[in-house]
């Protein structure tokens, strides 16, 4: 019995472990290109599916309908404001001249422990390292590795990932009507699943619903403030959540050269 066990360790586990260590330090991307090529064969087109809940209660349904109505009302002025914003930027010589590529998500964050996303565009489509990835105008991550036809995207909300953001007070909040608040620059840490956490120094006023955006002219939304936590003998911690569900991602846009 013991002989078999020792033999197993010597002939399989030790070489396997040393192989991993060797790959990690010497050739971290050695087989990644081949694996992505193979993956592209299975996912040449989108295969995403949307889950529809069958057991939504009538009360919840009513509340969802109300939310939808409210969102529609808010959207009425959206197009007008957007075109006005673009015109003003163009007048001031800072017009949007972004080069975007539409991409299909072929590997979702829950498929591995790394919280990464695989998209179906790569070097052949002009994608390069550190290009920004947006989904429905929400910034979600950056290109971490580029292959011929696919790219690996790391999410801003991945655990231990740090991102600088600016908190814009929402103009519609009641608190803002009473007291004019300025923008707040913070450094947030990813928590996974589209959530972020940031410590806020004393004296800074933030409220639920405030928008976190990436620093820059385009003000890309990163998340919405969902919770403020005050622990004893500790500074305040605020939690942000991305409006995009990372597990249900189907299409994203790559902003080239960002």
């Amino acid at each position, binding site marked *: 019995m013991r002989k078999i*066990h020792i033999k197993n360790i010597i002939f399989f*586990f030790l070489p396997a472990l040393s192989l991993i260590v060797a790959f990690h330090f010497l050739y971290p991307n050695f087989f990644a290109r081949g694996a992505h090529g193979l993956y592209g064969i299975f996912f040449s087109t989108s295969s995403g599916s949307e889950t529809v809940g069958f057991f939504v209660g009538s009360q919840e349904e009513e509340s969802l309908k109300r939310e939808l109505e409210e969102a529609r009302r808010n959207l009425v002025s959206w197009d007008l404001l957007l075109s006005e914003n673009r015109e003003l930027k163009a007048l001031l010589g800072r017009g949007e001249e972004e080069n975007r590529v539409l991409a299909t998500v072929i590997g979702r964050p829950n*498929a591995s*422990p790394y919280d990464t996303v695989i998209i179906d565009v790569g070097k052949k489509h002009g994608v390069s390292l550190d290009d920004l990835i947006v989904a429905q105008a929400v910034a979600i991550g950056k290109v971490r590795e580029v292959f011929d036809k696919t790219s*690996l995207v*790391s999410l801003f909300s991945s655990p*231990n990932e740090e991102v600088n953001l600016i908190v814009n007070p929402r103009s519609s909040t009641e608190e803002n009507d009473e007291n004019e608040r300025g923008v707040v620059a913070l450094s947030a840490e990813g928590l996974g699943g589209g959530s972020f956490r940031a410590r806020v120094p004393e004296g800074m006023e933030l409220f639920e619903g405030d928008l976190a955006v990436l620093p820059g002219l385009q003000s890309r939304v990163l998340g919405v403030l969902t919770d403020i936590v005050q622990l004893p003998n500790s500074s305040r911690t605020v939690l942000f959540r991305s409006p995009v569900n990372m597990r249900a991602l189907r299409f994203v846009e790559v902003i080239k050269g960002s």
Partner: protein
Amino acid sequence: MISRVLSNFLLLLAVLYLPFWAFVILIAVFVFLFQNFYEAVFWALFVDFLHGSQTDLFFGFRFISTLLVIIILMFAELFKKRLR
């Protein structure tokens, strides 16, 4: 033999379409069902090569799935010997 080939095909589907936890559960089941199911390491390597990135997560180590599967294999072999 056929069941082993089928289980490997199932693992390929798990890598492509299922969440990671389902892949780990399948690996654990097959490791107990089959003798020396070392192919599991190959599938774990495939996951790592596809999704792994040298990010701050796991201190930049990009072979975490492979390591996990090797640990499962080691414990399974020990456990099976005790059961016999």
